[in-house]
């Protein structure tokens, strides 16, 4: 599973590192939500897509845009415990 979201008008794809996924608990979707909360700025709109979703022609990759789908989510703040665990001191 991957995350798709917007960076400056271009669609970006976030791929989780398998080793990091191993450290998380919960369903695959819950793990991706946690990564979104961690790696995306708080308030970023995104969607979780399966690995087998067909993406557009790569020839025009820089013209891809993110369009909100039916299951759009918004990244949230991590807990203080997670912020401390990830050494994200500036957010504490």
């Amino acid at each position, binding site marked *: 599973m991957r995350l798709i979201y917007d*960076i400056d008008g*271009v669609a*970006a*794809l*976030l*791929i*989780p*590192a*398998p*080793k*990091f996924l*191993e*450290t998380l608990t919960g369903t695959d979707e819950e793990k991706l939500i946690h*990564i979104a909360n*961690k*790696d995306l700025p708080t308030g970023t709109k995104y969607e979780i897509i399966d690995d087998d979703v067909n*993406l557009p022609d*790569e020839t025009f*990759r*820089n013209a*891809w845009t993110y369009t909100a789908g039916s299951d759009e989510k918004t990244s949230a703040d991590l807990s203080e415990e997670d912020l401390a*665990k*990830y*050494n*994200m*001191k*500036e957010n504490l």
Partner: protein
Amino acid sequence: MSTIKSSDEHLTLNADGSSKDIKFQANGVEKASISSSGAFTSTTIDATKLTGDLPAISGANLTGVGVAGISSSADATAMTITSAEKIGIGTATPICLVELEHSNTTALSGDGDDSAINIHNTGGVNAISTISFSGGDHNGDGNLAGIYAKHTNVTENSETTDIGFKTSVNEAQVDNLILRGDRGLSQFTAKAWVRYGGTSSTIAVADSHNVSSVTHQQVGIYRINYANNLANANYVSFGNDDWYGINYFNSYTTSSVQHTHLNNNWTNRDTGICTALIFGD
């Protein structure tokens, strides 16, 4: 059988004279005695006939007593084994399997005379001392084995502190900080590394350390997100790829860095294998 008996009064055996002992013989051979000072001596004691509590006996007098291989010369409680099978040294109420408690405030000396634990190897020039941790589930989550040190204050001692551990107050005074678990990092080990690559359709992270994800932003432009933030953004990066190896890093932050790969005509290009190595605080 002959019996000395007194039913209505105390029975007194009196060795009446200075330094005269009361002796018990069997077949003409002395088996036990009570000295004039009250010391009881016997050739053997049948423990099956003993009842009641033993009197307090100085540990100094217990040398060689008890389980073979254990000797004690202590005259006060040095170690306590609780009913929960926890061992306390310096404490009668251990909170874990083995707890050492002391109130030492003296700086360590050369051989660790003031340490709570000192491993001293007498093996000579090839001496090796090891503390090992083992178990069945090493997933790199840092939960199975580790060393955890928590202080309220740390004073730098460059002569004796080779490795320091994370403290709650002053990490800067520790010579080589090691953080918790698999993220155990120092300035002489990689803070993060990752092997990834591909287009948006094929991108994958093959392996990594201290990396939570990689974002494909545009053609040839990837952002590496750290699992645990670096202490500051003044770190060193090194990268490569399986095309022309033309790549650069920019947008350094404590939580991520951007890694861009190019073709030999200086246009951005998605690359099948990209590698990145990060050193820093």
